[in-house]
């Protein structure tokens, strides 16, 4: 996982003081994810989370009139469930933490495109008898998003964004049990971010 201090240094390095405008934002949305694991025991099994609410915050710096860099941190809460046949059972409640560093550009009119790198950390409620029993993973993540923004008075900015990110999932327990490779996990997040100028 990238240390937060490194991200802050990177953020500062990309910032031109003369044009710097630091915005702080709050983000809320919903995240859907593909399966974390697929398996076959008697019948086909997949382990995946249901669409989950997420909350986060961003620190965004305008580099110029088009480019912005942002540090984001979000968390979502879901139940990881196993699905086999037409039945499903909860495996464990799961909190997912996602710190990211993003670079975004204002495109046509109010359309904003964003690319991000970061990490995803899985934090299960308990680890007994499940795929996290050997430890919960922290994995690298890449993503991009496309949003539309509106600016209101008092420097308030609202962005509705659809974002995609990808990481490759495995755990120590899965590897210990003989699984090889990692599962590509695709996530989609629809979010609303409200930000305002913190430092001009």
């Amino acid at each position, binding site marked *: 996982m990238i240390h937060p201090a490194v991200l802050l240094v990177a953020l500062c390095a990309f910032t031109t003081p003369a044009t710097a405008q630091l915005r702080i934002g709050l983000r809320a949305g919903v995240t859907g994810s593909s399966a974390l694991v697929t*398996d076959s025991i008697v019948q086909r099994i997949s*382990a995946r989370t249901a669409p989950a609410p997420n909350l986060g915050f961003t620190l965004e710096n305008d580099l110029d009139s088009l480019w912005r860099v942002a540090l984001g941190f979000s968390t979502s809460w879901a139940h990881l469930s196993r699905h086999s046949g037409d039945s499903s059972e909860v495996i464990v409640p799961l909190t997912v933490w996602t710190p990211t560093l993003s670079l975004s550009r204002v495109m046509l009119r109010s359309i904003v495109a964003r690319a991000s790198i970061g990490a995803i950390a899985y934090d299960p409620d308990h680890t007994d008898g499940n795929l996290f029993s050997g430890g919960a993973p922290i994995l690298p993540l890449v993503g991009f998003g496309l949003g539309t923004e509106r600016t209101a008075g008092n420097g308030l900015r609202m962005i509705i964004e659809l974002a995609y990110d990808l990481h490759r999932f495995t755990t120590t327990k*899965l590897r210990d049990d003989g699984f090889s490779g990692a599962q590509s996990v695709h996530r989609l997040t629809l979010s609303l971010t409200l930000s305002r100028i913190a430092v001009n």
Partner: protein
Amino acid sequence: MATVGCAITQPDRPAGYAFRSQPDNLVFHWNAGRMPVRYWAEPKGALPAYVDEGIRSWEDQFLYGEFEGTRITDSTTMQVRIEITGSAPPTAPLSTAPPAPACDGRTTLTVGTDNHMALPIVVTLRWFAGFTAEQVANCLARVTVHEIGHTIGLLQHSDRVTDIMYGAPFGVVQARELSSRDGASAQRLYHTASDITP
């Protein structure tokens, strides 16, 4: 040339052994609504510690939360009772010494004609005089894990000495820990529909 797949590849699990009750050929396992299964262990000698280790060993065979157990100290809500007959057994650190027939165990499940199982499941352990404390401790630790295997629904014995569920008529339990066949059998059990409901 190295390739990077997009999907995780599952392991080749061993075939395992049979787990259906005999002669009625029924399947039993705990369902999700009963988790964690509540074990009560008679506070004699190191039995509670053996039970803790047995529960942990079986939980560790699963990936998808199929089985979870916990040891409770209040027997009024127990689903499984584990007891030792007679006096408290001698205690000693567990070792890799060769197994000795210093103890045995029995698991009793009472199933009615409607395939409804009365709780608690009762596990009764015995230890025998004439063995060292180390032999008794090693034996009780192994047999406790074996009997907990029955309580999760493995209702038959393996015919391989390397499995913790090895037992009559083939012999007595020898293994100190669960094998991959034990794990594969337990996993298959918990993905097979249960005929018996507790």
